[in-house]
């Protein structure tokens, strides 16, 4: 056997794969073979590190050197310099946006310093397609501990005491949910994992499944033991092909090792897992719609009660939790509920993974203890706003959530404080917006999403969101009327009170929360026919200032010949003819054209 002296970890998550990780890997393999180093250096594909913005990411051990944005053409230098001679390739190191210092080591990055990676502990550090990597990190020991040393009731009690709450959005206490299903009467019970992550801007569940699938499988098996189920389903949207592929490999490997199947750890407990691919309907993230979809029916919610704990999949008692919830279970069993409950705030325990997107420097995944402020997440971990622009608001909780303005940035992030200010934890997607975002336009975007994804079963959601969207459309087009705001508020209240499922009931939230914090923007659109952010094209006029040198480039670029003027003389825009395409602004070398 050859001694392996170095491991090269290449991130093979969806983000890094999109930025070229597979090509880098192929080039690396070829280059190592060419240099005769292929026997002593191992290439390891890992899951997502969460630092997707800087991908493809490559880490070289034993040094632990962290390389970013590695491209195919960098590979020969990387092999020659680092792997052959042991010299770090400075130019590929990450540079801090503020200090511009290069950071050779993973753990010194400001992005990771304030994070507390528990659920994501293995993501990016193990090969998700090798069960041994998970076992080496202590994997399946919680399952062994539960099966051989704890009664199902003790497991449920432990989860209850940990204070873990559902990570999918609602924040219902997980232990209590398990208790309901455990106590429900039935000859057959099911465990279901909701991996139908559908919120725009949310990708933490995908990353956990891609980076550490066994953790979720172990959590589900422990749940199965606790509630008395011998079968489980993972409902994964088909748009996550890599997550599905890795889950299949993980399930096969676990079965082969006897960690799934019959008589696990000689305890008499049997547990099998199946994957159901969802077709990507947002509504199937709602638990009753999800169950209907597994049964092969059209994915539509039904009224509750009965709750799935009593009558779920095929009418049997079913416990349904989100990916991140299950991923929290093994560590609770391993380290104990008291340890878990010591992290976070009084009513929200543990950590939460957030997906950072939008106008933020470090797009990616951040796992932080509950109770941290939004300011720390966005500015310390997220590296602040792109291009040094001013922060305006952050949308939290996707289309069911709400936005938080600047003055609420110091709010501790937990389930209850977010509800109080009109937002919600949701699944943890954070969309950051800067001063160029129009809040009416934002509300319109999310409402357009829920309207398109409405399953159509109940009238308030089907018709109500459509009418609200029509009003928002007319406001952003400059045709808003007196009373539109009040009408939006009234409709929001009605939909919240009467829609059938949680998604319908929360659909008006983006409108309500933008109205709560940015009402003046709505009023400016309606009464002054002006978009303060300059984003709504129908309300934005273009004009040419005295900076104009008369070069004529704008005139040439205008597709509708709305610009007139002589060479070397100041030009003019005919606002009647202008279609507000912005082509002239892009062309002007003197920044003489302004919007607003």
């Amino acid at each position, binding site marked *: 056997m050859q001694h392996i002296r170095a491991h090269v970890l290449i991130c093979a998550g969806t983000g890094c794969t999109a930025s070229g990780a597979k090509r880098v890997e192929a080039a690396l393999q070829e280059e190592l073979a060419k240099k005769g180093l292929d026997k002593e250096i191992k290439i390891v594909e890992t899951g997502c590190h969460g630092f997707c913005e800087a991908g493809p990411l490559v880490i070289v051990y034993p040094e632990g050197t962290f390389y970013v944005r590695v491209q195919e053409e960098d590979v020969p230098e990387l092999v020659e310099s680092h792997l052959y*001679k042991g010299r770090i390739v400075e130019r590929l190191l990450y540079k801090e946006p503020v200090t511009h210092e290069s950071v050779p080591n993973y753990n010194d990055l400001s992005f990771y310093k304030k994070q507390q990676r528990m659920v994501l502990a293995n993501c990016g550090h193990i090969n998700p397609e090798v069960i041994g990597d998970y076992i080496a990190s202590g994997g399946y020991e919680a399952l062994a501990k539960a099966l051989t040393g704890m009664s199902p009731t003790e497991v449920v009690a432990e989860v209850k005491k940990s204070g873990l709450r559902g990570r999918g959005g609602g924040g219902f206490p997980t232990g209590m949910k398990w208790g309901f299903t455990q106590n429900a009467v039935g000859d057959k019970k099911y465990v279901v994992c909701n991996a139908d992550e559908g919120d725009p801007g949310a990708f933490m569940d995908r990353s956990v499944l891609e980076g550490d699938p066994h953790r979720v499988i172990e959590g589900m098996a422990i749940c199965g033991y606790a509630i008395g189920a011998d079968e489980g389903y993972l409902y994964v949207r088909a748009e996550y092909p890599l997550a599905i592929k890795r889950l299949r490999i993980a399930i096969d490997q676990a079965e082969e*090792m*006897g960690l799934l199947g019959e008589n696990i750890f000689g305890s008499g407990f049997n547990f099998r897992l199946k994957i159901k691919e969802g077709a990507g309907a947002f509504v199937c993230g709602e638990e009753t719609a999800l169950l209907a979809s597994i049964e092969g029916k059209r994915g539509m919610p039904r009224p509750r009660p009965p709750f799935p704990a009593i009558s779920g999949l095929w009418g049997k008692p079913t416990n349904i939790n989100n990916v991140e919830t299950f991923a929290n279970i093994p560590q609770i069993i391993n380290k104990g509920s008291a340890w878990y409950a010591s992290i976070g705030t009084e009513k929200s325990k543990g950590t939460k993974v957030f997906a950072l997107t939008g106008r933020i420097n470090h797009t990616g995944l951040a796992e932080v203890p509950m109770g941290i402020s939004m300011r720390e997440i966005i500015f310390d971990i997220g590296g602040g706003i792109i291009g040094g622009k001013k922060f305006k608001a952050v949308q939290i909780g996707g289309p069911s959530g709400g936005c938080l303005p600047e003055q609420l940035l110091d709010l501790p992030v937990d389930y209850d404080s977010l509800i109080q200010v009109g937002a919600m934890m949701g699944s943890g997607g954070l969309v950051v917006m800067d001063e160029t975002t129009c809040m009416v336009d934002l509300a319109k975007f999310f409402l357009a999403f829920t309207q398109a994804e409405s399953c159509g079963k109940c009238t308030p959601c089907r018709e109500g969101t459509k009418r609200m969207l029509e009003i928002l459309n007319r406001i952003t087009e400059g045709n808003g009327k007196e009373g539109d705001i009040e009408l939006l508020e009234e409709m929001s209240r009605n939909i919240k009170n009467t829609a059938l499922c949680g998604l319908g009931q929360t659909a008006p939230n983006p409108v309500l929360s933008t109205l709560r914090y940015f009402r003046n923007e709505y009023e400016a659109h309606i009464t002054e026919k002006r978009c303060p952010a300059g984003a709504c094209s129908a309300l934005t006029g273009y004009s040419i200032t005295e900076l104009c040198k008369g070069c004529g480039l704008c005139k040439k670029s205008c597709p509708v010949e709305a610009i007139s003027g002589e060479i070397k003389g100041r030009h003019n825009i005919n606002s009647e003819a202008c279609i507000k395409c912005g082509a002239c602004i892009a062309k002007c070398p003197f920044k003489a054209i302004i919007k607003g």
Partner: protein
Amino acid sequence: MKTIEDLKRMREQFQAENSLRQAGGIQVIVGMGTCGIAAGAREVMTSILDEIAKRKLQNVIVRQTGCIGMCEQEVLVDVVRPGEPRITYGKVTADDVSQIIGEHVVNGRIVEKLVVGKITD
């Protein structure tokens, strides 16, 4: 896998395979500057890896370093055992490797005749 003991055994086995990603262990450091390479550092490196594999040693990390200015003494090989001074061997050839690994890395006995330097932290 049927018992917790099976799982624990497996854990240890898999951990050993990934040990170089953890800190700790004995380090063997080969001078791979231009001078070192010219003096045959690559051959020394290869024979170190072969020797470690032959002896099935775990928890030994092989690294490279650049020129430290003692080019005349290349190939330089350093051995660092945790908590002990860093020993530098000079003019190492592939033939010396087996002795350095067998004596120093495995048994902690410094091969005095090859030593050119000692660094204590």
